[in-house]
């Protein structure tokens, strides 16, 4: 056996790709956890088809999971991969264009047989394994299927069952290559298959077989060491966006002292919030899977009326159905958080692909003048902060708040230096107090300095009152068709949103100087790509800065001033130009739109190229 050479590297991008039944998401998630525990900074990008089991071996059925990790700061899952693990021809074909020249390809040779070649539409008599087309890459051909079957020959399992363990072989091999700790996956397998010892043992055996394969075969001469990243000191965990959103809601519930009610209807990519929340009933978290999207939000409105912290969640198509009820909540002036995990639209669009094209819907997607607060998370862990913030604003201003996330950060993962609950900003809530018959009549639309009305919950003596979707007289809340009153109420509802600006943080420059030639002004999940691009541009001597807007309606009070220090403002968005129109309208800034509408996140090299094109 030749000695293995250990190389120190700063960062690496690995893409696991296979058939949607090959367990690539699980492989990626396990690798992510092990890497997080190892102390690397990381970012991930799961990329999978909407079909649960697309036809086997086809291009449509390819499921990928990309992870970028390193000893330096990692902002994105990486533009191109250094290593491609391809379980079959289709996975190879779909992903090879994103592999760096000279990169490593680990191929499962059994996935390159005649049948797989045909399913992936490879012309006859061609096979990338032996036709010389891969001479630019470092190709490792491994008989994953064969070795897995051999390892489990004595297991008594069927071939079909055995083949399901293939992903563990690959995981074991890649663990070996990158010195990842294997223990957390062993623990995972022990828990997951605790009721089926045969399957548990089989998976553990194959995982170890993968590790040993790296150790013993001459094909793998190199191993790589990636030192833990120099991150801010503290205690970390790995977190995905939807997980973080669920935790943020629970934290807001605990800190406000109000039980949480989550009324929703399953939809990709928002359902995981429901799944997560439903596990924590012991926190007084009440989840309600309604008969449809409309019932989901309406039940939440009922819960808000009753004094709960009420939240509804969906994705674009569901939000479209909720539109009328959001208008109702605006008229009722009750606290309500509306979560939209955006996906590519319109209509059904591309459910598993990311996009930022529902900003207009959040801002304007209702009948009448119907302003609501809109905030958007910029990274997986930021979903915690902003879900918490959405609840806080809703409760303290008696107003509906849109919390926008997207499929990319919802399913993406990163290390998170999580907060102590004691350090979270308090959320003070008070209900209107009961009244005696001798007291003045209760006025349900009497406003405080924030212009919000009292929260008078049923069951409180002396506060009996009626609210509804019909225009009402200010202060009394009685039905009113009075012309001047309608205009007054319209202005009040707008001012109420505007006043939120007094309670949110000022906009800051994320990287770069306070002034310069160009400001990249992004929002939402594009944060990592824009940050990486800005760092690169600055390193090359460009006077470029980056700011990411998280509070969109209202904007932070200093946003206009912040933009005014730059000669050019560019607004990159994964849509056809939505924030840019609001910015141009509100600040008369000649902001330049930069749009990508492919269901995919920005690559930082694309952003760099675009900015150079503008500046050079």
């Amino acid at each position, binding site marked *: 056996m030749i000695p293995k050479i250990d190389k120190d590297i700063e960062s690496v991008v690995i893409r696991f790709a296979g058939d949607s039944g090959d367990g690539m998401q699980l492989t990626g998630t396990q690798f992510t956890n092990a890497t997080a525990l190892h102390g690397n900074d990381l970012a991930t990008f799961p990329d999978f088809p909407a079909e649960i089991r697309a036809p086997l071996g086809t291009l449509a059925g390819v499921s990928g999971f990309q992870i970028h990790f390193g000893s330096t700061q990692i902002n994105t899952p990486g533009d191109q991969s250094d290593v491609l693990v391809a379980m079959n021809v289709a996975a190879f074909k779909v992903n090879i264009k994103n592999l760096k020249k000279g990169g490593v390809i680990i191929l499962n040779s059994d996935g390159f047989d005649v049948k797989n070649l045909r399913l992936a539409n490879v012309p006859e008599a061609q096979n990338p394994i032996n036709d010389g087309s891969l001479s630019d890459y470092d190709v490792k051909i491994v008989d994953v299927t064969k070795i897995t079957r051999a390892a489990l020959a004595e297991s008594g399992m069927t071939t079909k069952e055995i083949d399901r363990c293939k992903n563990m072989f690959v995981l074991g091999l890649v663990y070996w290559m990158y010195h990842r700790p294997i223990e957390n996956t062993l623990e995972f397998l022990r828990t997951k298959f605790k009721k089926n010892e045969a399957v548990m043992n089989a998976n553990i055996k194959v995982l170890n077989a993968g590790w040993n394969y790296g150790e013993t075969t001459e094909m793998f001469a190199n191993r790589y060491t990636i030192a833990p990243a120099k991150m801010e000191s503290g205690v970390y965990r790995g977190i995905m966006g939807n997980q973080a959103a669920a935790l943020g809601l629970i934290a807001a519930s605990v800190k406000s002292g109000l039980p949480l009610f989550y009324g929703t209807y399953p939809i990709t990519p928002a359902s995981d919030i429901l799944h997560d929340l439903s596990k924590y*009933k012991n926190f007084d978290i009440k989840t309600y899977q309604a008969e449809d999207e409309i019932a989901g939000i309406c039940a939440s409105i009922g819960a808000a009326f009753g004094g709960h912290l009420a939240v509804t969640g969906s994705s674009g198509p569901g939000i479209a159905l909720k539109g009328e009820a959001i208008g109702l909540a605006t008229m009722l002036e009750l606290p309500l958080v509306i979560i939209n995990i955006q996906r590519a639209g319109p209509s059904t669009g591309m459910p598993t692909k990311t996009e930022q094209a529902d900003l207009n819907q959040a801002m304007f997607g209702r009948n009448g003048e119907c302003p609501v607060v809109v905030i958007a998370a910029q990274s997986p862990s930021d979903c915690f902060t902003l879900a918490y913030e959405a609840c806080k604003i809703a409760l303290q201003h008696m107003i509906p708040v849109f919390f926008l996330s997207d499929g990319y950060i919802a399913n993406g993962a990163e290390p998170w230096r999580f907060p102590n609950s004691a350090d979270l900003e308090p959320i003070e809530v008070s209900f209107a107090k009961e009244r005696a018959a001798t007291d003045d009549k209760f006025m349900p639309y009497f406003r405080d300095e924030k212009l919000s009305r009292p929260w008078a919950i049923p069951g409180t003596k002396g506060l*009996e009152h009626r609210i509804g979707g019909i225009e009402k007289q200010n202060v009394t809340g009685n039905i009113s068709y009075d012309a001047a009153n309608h205009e007054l109420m319209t202005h009040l509802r707008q001012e109420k949103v505007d006043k939120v600006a007094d309670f949110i943080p000022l906009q800051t420059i994320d990287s770069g100087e306070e002034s310069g030639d160009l400001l990249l002004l992004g929002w939402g999940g594009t944060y990592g790509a824009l940050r990486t691009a800005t760092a690169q541009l600055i390193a090359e001597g460009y006077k470029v800065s980056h700011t990411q807007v998280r509070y969109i309606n209202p904007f932070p009070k200093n946003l206009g001033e912040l933009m005014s220090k730059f000669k050019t403002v560019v607004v990159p968005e994964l849509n056809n130009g939505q924030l840019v129109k609001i910015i141009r309208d509100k600040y008369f800034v000649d902001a330049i739109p930069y749009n990508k509408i492919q269901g995919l996140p920005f690559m930082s090299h694309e952003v760099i190229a675009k900015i150079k094109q503008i500046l050079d």
Partner: protein
Amino acid sequence: MTEVAEKLTSKDFSSDQEVRWCPGCGDYSILKQVQTILPDLGRPKEEFVFISGIGCSSRFPYYMDTYGMHSIHGRASAIATGLKATRPELSVWVVSGDGDSMSIGGNHFIHLLRRNPDINLLLFNNQIYGLTKGQYSPTSEQGKVTKSTPLGSIDYPFNPIALSLGADGTFVARTMDRDPKHQQAMIRRAYDHQGTSLVEIYQNCNVFNDGAFEIYTEKSSKKEQTLMMEHGKPLVFGENSDKGIKLDGFKPIIVDLNDSSVNDLWIHDEEDLVKATILSRFYDDPSKGDHFPRPFGVFYVNNHKDTFDKLFNDQIAYAKEKMGKGDLDKLIAGKETWVVN
């Protein structure tokens, strides 16, 4: 439920808002009966919540001096479910019409009955769209000539009672605006029932569909055309109580009591779903010969099904008992953490 110190009156339940239904509308009677019943329930008024959708009937909450919400079209049941789930101690009522509940809110209607929260749903059925000025509704009879159907409606109507039984409703009853006593009895029983109570109320729209239920409500025809069901009593009807319903297997037959003994008649059993289902199908066009009389009263009660609000909150209590009160910091930290120095 809190005990009330002093007895409330129906006036205590009237809000200061002027009632704006058309003069002669059947809704007035329903409002009056509800305001008459509520003081008898011995419950403080702050515990009552009336939630409505859109339509003439849905103005109802504005006239009640209780908590109320006039919401959006068809969605009152969904809103009420959310409120009742989170505040089970409240007495939650839904006021809705045939357009609101049978058409735009049909989905929420069936799911309300399926889930069975302890909510009372008063379905004002006038077989017409009143607020939008006279289009046919999903309970209008086929052939109905209205503004939107000048050649007559081609739609077959819904049978709300059969629909409710089909959706596994646990309390299904029918009454009429012109019979205050019967109406009060039905509303009271709806309140007493633990679970979703559906009371279909035949309500006259004297502007757009006047006389739709005249045959059941007018003295001259009421006895002949209606079947007033009472639990444990034989199904008797007719001008001189001279007719009855008998079951031949599963087939109901009208018999003349001059030829047949009352002892052979079908004894109404509210807890018998199969028989309730047969009765729900007494839905013939009364202008046709050999039709069955239209039943009023309680078709069906199921007292053995837990309510949604109970199950919903029991599960929360169970989780707290089993897992203990949640520790937020532990939850945020998750299972695996690492320290960076």
